[in-house]
Every structure is written in C-alpha cells, then in structure tokens.
C-alpha cells in the first residue's frame, strides 16, 4: 500500500499505478471467516481485539527492520536488542515513579507512560545510531558478515542488559487506570489492548503520511526502489539511512515498552524471543515493504489468536504455516519490492 507511489501531481502525465488490493482484503476476510468457526460473537470480538493489539506491537518492532532492509540491504539480526533495551529503559521511569503509576488519575498515568516511552525511544534511537556507526558501517554489502556481526551485537547487548539491570526478571506494573476491561454487551475488551491498537494505528498513519506526503518520505521510497539513482540526483542517501535506522530502532524501542507492559515481566531475552516473529512478519509482507509488514503483522497475530482458541496445538506452528501458505501464493511476500 505504501510502496506503491500515487501520481505525483495533477499535471503529471504518469500512468496510474494499479493498486494491488487483494492483500488488503486478507485481514477483514480472515476475521469474518473466523466468526462462524469461533461461534460466539463476544468471544470473537475479544479474540480479534487481542489479535489486533498484538499485531500493532509486532508491527512497530518490524516496520523499522523492513525499511532498513529495503533502503540499505542490511538485515539486522540484532533488531531484537532494541526491543529489549526499550523495555528495560522504560523501567528507569516506571519503577522510581511508582506513585504516579499507582494513582487512579488518568493524566498522571498517561504522563508517566508517555515519559517512559519518550525516554525509551530516545535511548534506542541513540543506540541505533551507535549500532549503525560501530557495528554495521564496516560491513555494508557483505551479507554473511552482516548476519554474524549483528548476531554478535545482539549477544553483547543482551549481556549488557544483564550487567546494568541485573539478571533477575523485573516485574512491570500496568498503570492502574489501564487495567481491567470495558464490557460492551457480552464482549470484554481489555483497556490496555485498545490503547495498544490506538498507539499502533497512530504510528502506522504517521508513517504512512511521512512516507507518502513528505519529501523525506519520497526520498526514502525512491531509495528503496533505486538507491544509486537517488545518490546520482545529489541526495546523501547515507544520511537518510542513518535517520531511518535511528527511527526504526526507536520504533522497536516503543514496541518493546508496550510489549513489556503487556507481558508485565521483563527478561533480557524479551527482544530475542520476538525476533523470529518479526522475521516471519517481514517475510510475509515482502522484504522492504511497510504496508506489507503491517498486513503481515495483523495476519500473524490474528491467526495466532484464533488458532490458540480453536486448536491450541496448531497454534504452536501457526506462524510457520501461515508463512508457507503466503509464500506459496506469492513467493516474494505480499508486496514484493522489486530489485535484489
């Protein structure tokens, strides 16, 4: 959806690009198909919201990775480290300000979580900058070394979290007004999941607008399509890439904070555990495509939730089955990004 450029201006003579809508229909179709299988409407609503919430969080973690790959042909196997660091940085705000977390005031709750998120994004963004400089810059274009080196970076980062925050799990409290659920009819909607959906949608819409309506977005999309051409036109694609890398890391940090509060306990492996899911999502979406990544995240999370309810044993491998199915249909992912 985002990778397909719309006509630039009214007077441009460019042919209209055909918008590929079939993948867009997948998510609603899947949800509707599952309704009769699940049976009861309230359960279905609960499952769907839970799936969407999880999908949003996964999308935040995955979107940066897929953009980084599309733009610079770098696959960061250490992306999960940013998720962990983000979640752990949030504890620096959330644990000392326990009072603000425990009060019943919505505004104090919101502001403390907001501060935690801001700090986490700042730290992971800066870390992303350092990571790009130190770890990735020397190995551009060398895939084998990239995989190894980012894997090594991940190990080191995970161990450093142990050094700084200690080896024990850290319990993370949800702010008191975020707990509980809204009851609508018979369907229980957990508040925190709705918040996650809200944040996720905001991120997605912002990203969509930035990518499609701003000059920077135009350059990023052009860079994904053909980086050399952008450079030839006089833009420093390297700076663009550093920016995208930082933004992607910060988004992973944001995803980490939300995911950490969702799980309510933190371990240093929290990011590493998500890596597999994130990879599946970006493969399904098509490497380099943000829109595909969004749909992929929704699909994976919804299927996991429905399968967990209908056939728990199948749920263990549902992501893999989904990936294989999608790849059999479209071997390059939902929205193939041409080149490479």
């Amino acid at each position, binding site marked *: 959806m985002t990778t397909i450029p719309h006509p630039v201006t009214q007077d441009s003579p460019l042919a209209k690009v055909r918008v590929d809508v079939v993948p867009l229909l997948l998510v609603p179709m899947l949800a509707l198909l599952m309704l009769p299988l699940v049976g009861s409407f309230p359960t279905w609503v609960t499952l769907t919201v839970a799936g969407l919430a999880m999908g949003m969080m996964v999308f935040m973690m995955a979107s940066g990775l897929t953009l980084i790959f599309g733009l610079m042909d770098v*696959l960061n*196997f250490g992306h999960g480290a940013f998720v962990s660091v983000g979640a752990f940085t949030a504890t620096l705000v959330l644990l000392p300000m326990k009072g603000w977390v425990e009060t019943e005031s919505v505004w104090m709750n919101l502001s403390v979580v907001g501060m935690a998120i801001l700090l986490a994004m700042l730290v992971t963004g800066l870390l992303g900058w350092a990571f790009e400089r130190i*770890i990735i810059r*020397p*190995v551009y274009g060398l*895939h*084998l*070394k990239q*995989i*190894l*080196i980012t*894997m*090594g*970076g991940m*190990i*080191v980062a995970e*161990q*450093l979290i*142990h*050094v*700084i925050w*200690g*080896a024990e799990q850290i319990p993370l409290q949800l702010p008191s007004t975020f707990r509980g659920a809204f009851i609508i009819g018979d369907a229980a909607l957990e508040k925190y999941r709705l918040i996650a959906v809200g944040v996720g949608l905001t991120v997605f819409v912002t990203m969509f607008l930035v990518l499609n309506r701003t000059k920077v977005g135009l350059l990023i999309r052009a860079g994904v399509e053909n980086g050399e051409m952008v450079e030839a036109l006089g833009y420093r694609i390297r700076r663009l890439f550093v920016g995208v890398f930082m933004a992607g890391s910060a988004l992973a940090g944001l995803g980490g904070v939300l995911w950490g509060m969702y799980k309510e306990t933190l371990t240093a492996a929290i990011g*590493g555990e998500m*890596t*597999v899911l994130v*990879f*599946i999502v970006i*493969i399904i979406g098509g*490497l380099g495509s943000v829109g595909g990544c969004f749909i992929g995240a929704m699909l994976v999370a919804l299927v996991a939730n429905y399968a967990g309810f209908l056939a728990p*044993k199948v749920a*263990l*491998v549902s*992501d*893999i089955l989904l*990936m294989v199915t999608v790849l059999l249909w479209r071997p390059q992912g939902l929205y193939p990004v041409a080149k*490479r």
Partner: protein
Amino acid sequence: MMNNLLSGDLPRSRLLSAMLLAVLVGLALAPFLFHGARSLNVAATICVFIVLVASYDLLLGYTGIVSFAHTMFYGIGAYGVGLALHGMGPTWSAVLVGTSAALVVSLLLALVIGLFSLRVRAIFYAMITLAVAAAFAVLASQLSDYTGGEDGRTFKVPDLLQPGFHLLEGEFFGRALDGKLITYYLVFFSALALFLFMLRIVNSPFGRVLQAIRENDFRAEALGYRTVIYRTLANCLGALIATLAGVLMALWLRYVGPKTMLSFEVMTDILLIVVIGGMGTVYGAVIGSALFILMQNYLQVLMKEASAAMVGIPLLANLFHPDRWLLWLGVLFVLSVYFFPAGIVGKLRAGAQARSQRKP
C-alpha cells in the same frame, strides 16, 4: 600416511600442529589424565562439539550458507535415539532404530528446507531456518506426551555403556574399565572418524566446488556446476553429521531435553566457536571447541575471583560476574569477525606463511 589420513590438508603451522596434537592427546587420554566426572564430561562435550561445529563449518565456512537450524538437526539426532531407548528399552536395536529414524527425518527436512529456500539469497535462508528451528523447539517442548516436554527424558543405555558395567575387574592406570569409559571412547572414536571424514569431504573435488560457490556463486554456475544442487547436498551432509553428533551427545548424557539440545543458546555457541576458531578451516572447529568449552567450564572460576576483587565497584563487579562470560565471548566474536575473519586457525596459518616466505 599422515598426509593420507588428513586428506592432504595439513595444519601448515607449527604452533597449530602443536595445539591440535595437544587437543588430540588430551582427548584421547582424558580418562587417565584427569580424574573426576566433571573433567571427563568436559572432554566428551568437546568431542561432540568438534563434530557439530565442523559440520556447521561445512555450511558456513565452506559453502557460505548461514543456517540457524543446525541445532534442530542436532536435536533430532538426540531425540531420535533418546526416545527410541526410552520407548523400546535399553537395547542396541533401539539405538540403531533411533539413529536411522533420526537420520531419515533430518535428511528429509534438510532437503525440503534446502530446495524451498536455498534458491534465493543467503539472508532469506537464514531467516527461514531461524523460524523453522524455533517452531521445532516449541513443538519439542510442548508435545510433552512424546518428548517429555521441558523436563526432557532420561533413559537407560545398552548394558555395555552403563556406568555399572565392568569389562574387566580391577583398575587400569587408576581407572576402572567401566561402561562410562567405554561410552567415552565410543564418543571419542566416532568423533575422530567423523572429523576425518569431513576433512576428506572438504578436500575432495566436491569440497572445492563448495568453496567456489562461496567465493562467487555466479561464476560457479557459469562453469557448469548446478549451485542449487551443490548447496542442497552440503546442507544435507551437514544436517546428517549434526544428527550423528546429537546421537553421541544423547548416549553420553543419557538424557535428552529441549534446553540442552534445541535451545537457541546452543546455536549461538556454535556460531561463536566457528567464527572464533576459524571459518572455512575444519581445524578451527577443534581449536574453537576446545577453547570455548574449557572457557565455559573454567573461565567462570577466574571471573568469580575477578568479580570478588571488585566487589566494591558496582558496575565493574557485574561486568566480571561469572555468569557474564558470554559477554566477553560476544565481544571477542564481534572483534574477530572484523579483524581476523579466518579466526585463530587462519591467523596462525597466515603467520606461518609469512615466516616461510621471508626465510628464502
């Protein structure tokens, strides 16, 4: 004869030869040189890891394939023999059935994954194998009716390998000739044979093609070698040998479980060993495994002392905490990818070559 046994691929460095010899002698005489169950366990683990890591090197170092599913094949071997012994009782036929079933399963899986994703780029293969291996580990720990779940399964091995079994009465150089000793030598000689077999493979014409693919797959294809087929063959071969390593480990531990056989930590261990030891040199697996496993078991003792010495300083004490040994290896790993990508073995060989060129 030495040349034949090592398939013409001699260590080519005096220091390297000395180190290899030390490892060989140390492992061959381990039961007599060191006493106590722990040191024998360390020696057996080194043997198994040499095979496991060398088989991974076949993929990573020689063919240039990054796979994260190597522990899966290792786990298949271990679970195959473990579950067969658990289900059929401690007989040799159970070992045979378990091993061959595991080999068949590994072969099929490697073939399917290979044909499915080796056509495309290295990165894609890395991601797919990561996902498949993760799913396999989840399956093994969740299907607890068959696999024993998180706890795994303990089982009895055939009589000859039982610790209670005595081949001869009395002691031999201070060591009873019991089943534990026999198991150790079973592991040791199987590992040695598999190691020499792999040395043979990488120095055969087939191995040369693999290296050609690693260096430039487009050119290899242009020369008339079907790269997909060669890659898939290397993948299957690596998987089969990893399966055998798993079988050996299960026989030695008399236990299978997801944590020791399938966890991602094992995979990172393998990666660390391959890179630090030296990619694309089978000998790297020997040096790397010996160093790594010794460090894993004994570095922590040193670090405990360092940590105790710095107990007053908050962050530093944590930095040297015995559980943080992986941190230091991780740093070493990153540094070695940058500065000596051919690892310890490559460095030693390069040094020896430079010296011999200077002499005349």
